[in-house]
């Protein structure tokens, strides 16, 4: 019998539809893997095996009744704990929301359940999605299933903030998981874990019911084993939502049906500014491989310039914390979540005590940065200036599209690192997202595809950035790489 947990989204969906196995069998298999890995990998904050089984049973019943099945029918997934799930604790990996159980379901998760997916549990993440290594969660680090070769037992970072998502997919605890990407939080963990992750165009997936980090950047997307699985899952997640004013009011294409790795007639831009000093030579080598593969697929390679790239990361670290400082003001101990009310304390004391106890250090750091850059006297120098940079970064891409259809670059400047190796140096940590942030600032669709492993046996990812609304172009280029990279590496099971 097939090892069901080795299967991806398309294979499970098709197998369930054909009757090769039942959705319940799939859910049970993944539930078992989830339970077995929880202590070692800590990928989930809560597990919901019953929810996975109930969804599976509904799909099996529908199939038995001859009903049409949804595009994710029978696929159990991990849900990043940034998405509000009705009746299931939703924490954003924070103490301040510990025990908070929403009375509502996020639009994206609703869409997935409506498509026949089931929930294995709520995935761990960096607290409020702030972090690049999954070391800021109140519920403990997520541990990558990957290890350096040669018998190392150093615990590796799964990347962040969607570290629970990347771990659960690469460790075969789920065939796919939701992620959110504000400045690389889908792409960087996907690259670290040897899986595929897509951040669609800003506005493709509704933000309604997703705990906000930086509203103008936050965007949900799929994380799965391959391009096809991501195309299927993105199709189930996306769609116009009148409850989100920034939602894109346009039809959702059938990305899966239109997948095509033939790159003839397509131009691929190679931005010279991404050849940064200090970038790992193995990363640069993987980039060259990617160029060769796309050429092989028929694409024309063109050199392009994105001159404001080096200002993107600093601008991001002004805009995102500014929005976060305001978005997180609602966690005040008044209506829900943690309340710390010292004896005899007044309202201001309660705010201070609650937020001091409820937020982790990285969250506090960003709230402080954000508060500072919005303060009277500093607003123009920081926030306004950063917005101008953001406009210039977007303009860089606009100009690039005159010369190419998609852009190829590394996803990250290094492969995964050991937990604790960078956690004392926030700036070094922030550099993880240097290649990811420009597409976030410009709101463009981008993905990371696995392209190989480095000399330590750790996965590497290549990033493709496309024009606004052209997820198809991004997925197609990703598929061309996937077909040629022949990435089959998987973490050896040690947990």
């Amino acid at each position, binding site marked *: 019998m097939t090892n069901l947990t080795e299967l991806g989204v398309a294979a499970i969906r098709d197998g369930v539809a054909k009757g090769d196995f039942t959705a319940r069998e799939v859910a049970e298999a993944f539930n078992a893997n989830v339970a077995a890995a929880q202590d070692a990998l800590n990928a989930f904050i809560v597990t919901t095996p019953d929810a996975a089984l109930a969804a599976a049973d509904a799909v099996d019943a529908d199939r038995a009744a001859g009903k049409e099945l949804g595009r994710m029918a029978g696929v159990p997934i991990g849900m990043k704990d940034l998405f509000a799930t009705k009746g299931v604790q939703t924490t954003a990996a924070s103490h301040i929301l510990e025990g908070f159980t929403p009375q509502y379901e996020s639009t994206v998760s609703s869409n997935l359940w409506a498509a026949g997916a089931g929930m294995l549990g709520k995935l761990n993440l960096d607290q409020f999605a702030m972090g690049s290594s999954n070391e800021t969660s109140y519920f403990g680090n997520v541990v990558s299933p990957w290890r350096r070769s040669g018998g190392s037992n150093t615990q590796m970072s799964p990347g962040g903030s969607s570290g629970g998502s990347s771990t659960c997919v690469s460790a075969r605890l789920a065939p796919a998981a939701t992620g959110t990407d504000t400045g690389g939080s889908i792409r960087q963990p996907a690259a670290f874990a040897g899986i595929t992750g897509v951040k669609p165009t800003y506005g493709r997936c509704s933000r309604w019911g997703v705990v906000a980090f930086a509203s103008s950047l936050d965007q949900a997307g799929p994380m799965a084993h391959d391009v096809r699985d991501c195309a299927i899952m993105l199709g189930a997640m996306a769609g116009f939502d009148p409850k989100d*004013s920034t939602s894109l009011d346009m039809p959702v294409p059938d990305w899966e049906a239109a997948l095509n790795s033939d790159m003839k007639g397509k131009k691929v831009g190679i931005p010279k500014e991404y050849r940064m000093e200090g970038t790992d030579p193995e990363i640069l080598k993987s980039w060259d491989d990617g160029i060769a593969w796309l050429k092989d697929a028929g694409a024309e390679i063109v050199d392009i310039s994105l001159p404001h790239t080096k200002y993107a990361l600093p601008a991001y670290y002004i805009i995102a914390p500014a929005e976060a400082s305001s978005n997180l003001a609602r966690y005040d101990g008044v209506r829900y979540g943690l309340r710390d009310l010292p004896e005899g304390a007044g309202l201001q004391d309660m705010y201070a005590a609650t937020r001091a106890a409820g937020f982790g250090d990285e969250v506090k750091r960003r709230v402080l940065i954000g508060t500072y850059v919005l303060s009277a006297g500093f607003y123009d120098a920081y926030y306004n200036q950063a917005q101008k940079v953001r406009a210039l970064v977007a303009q860089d891409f606009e100009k690039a599209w005159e010369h190419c259809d998609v852009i190829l670059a590394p996803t990250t400047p290094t492969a995964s690192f050991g937990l604790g190796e960078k956690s004392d140096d926030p700036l070094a940590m922030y550099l993880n997202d240097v290649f990811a942030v420009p597409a976030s600032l410009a709101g463009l669709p981008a993905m990371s595809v696995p392209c190989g492993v480095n000399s330590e046996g750790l996965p590497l990812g290549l990033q493709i950035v496309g024009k606004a609304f052209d997820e198809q172009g991004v997925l197609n280029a990703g598929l061309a790489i996937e077909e040629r990279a022949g990435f089959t590496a998987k973490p050896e099971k040690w947990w």
Partner: protein
Amino acid sequence: MSNYRIHGATGEWEVVIGLEVHAQVTSKSKLFSGADTTFGAEPNTQVSLIDAAMPGMLPVPNAECIRQAVRTGMAIEAQINKYSRFDRKNYFYADLPQGYQISQLYHPIVGEGQLLIEKDEKAGIPEDKIIGIERIHVEQDAGKLMHDQHPTMSYVDLNRCGVALMEIVSKPDMTSPAEAGAYVRKLRSILRYVGSCDGNMEQGSMRADVNVSVRKVGDTELGTRTETKNVNSVRFVMAVIESEVRRQVDLIEDGGEVVQETRLYDPDKNETRSMRSKEDAHDYRYFPDPDLLPLNLEDDFLEECRASLPELPDAKRLRYINELGLSEYNAHVLTAEVETFARFETLLAITAEHLGKPESDTATTVANWSMSTAPGVVKSLGDEANLEYATAEAQAAILKMQDTGKISGGQAKEIYEIVLKTGRSPDEIADTEGLKQVSDTGAIEEAIDAIIAANGDKVEQYKGGKDKLFGFFVGQTMKAMQGKANPAVVNQLLKDKLG
């Protein structure tokens, strides 16, 4: 220019006033959520997930609130900004679940406009005056804290939280309490005409922040201002200015300095007191709300807004004067309130129709009836009056009988009294209660003949040139007719017979 002056120990002072009026937008649901806005509901029964700022909730603009703000802007002849944007005003308070108020700082929806306050010499406004309006922006209201529910804790009611407000900011163009009062009344009237705010100050639908500074007469620099928050009646606005002016003048003349600060008005003591000074002022860290796209108003939408505006107070007042021939005073009073002009116009239309005359021919009669006669009857009856019977049809029937001479003015009042008490038809009352004038020339002639015969001496005197005696004959005739003769007929017959 107002001649309002404060006589201080060191000379004459004048006051400069600017008002920020917060007007609650009339709409079924809140500015960014679908929750109900009805006033007076049980606490926390009109709160959506968005109003309570639950994690992941997002605001969606309510088009009706935007429309009302645009219509209001048009009614004050203001620049409508096709591009506007919402900003977050960040501060922590328990009645503000989001931790920020969504407002418009940088790009308000309505730019500069103006309104006219009418001359009112009695109140010290010697001539009509234009008051500039700086801007109108749209923002969320906050909830309410309740401090009387528990001995040690405060409770929060979020029903009001997220309700749409228009903040209407005047220029510092007012120079007396009377002008400020007239401004608030006029603004309220315009809002009610437009239907964008019910103007109910007791329920807090309209409240004003009053900015006051003083300076020596002749100075051109503005003095330091104070802002007294949340003043909720016209009378209090004027009282705040008077007390604040006095306080500031006394303070400066005693060698002190006015501090720029926020103050609160205590109506019981009729004084303002400091709430927080500039040093304690919040740094609101305004920035564009990333959850909301900028508003881009389309031409079609603007045209629809403009087409939906009713005739506004100034235009109506001028039409009453120029086309209906009403006095300035009558036109002013009748156009001040929506209910008043609505009643007047309905009654005028029906009366004119019944009489088959143009409205201008009967407008003054209807105006006098509406403004003085009818309210007088209602007042004299007190609780006995059932206002449900005060229909336009009944009043028009009375006015018609009066106009055609069937009844006298006195009889009109008597009939209206009975109408208000019983709801009976005016024509039936006139017939059955004997409340009709006699226009039958035969009966009147008979009475006149008898009077002439009995007063030969007076007839001689009259004919000799003592014109004043005509009134005597009228009185005698009316007396003989028990007051029911039509005065016009009596006059005509007397003139004929006395030669």
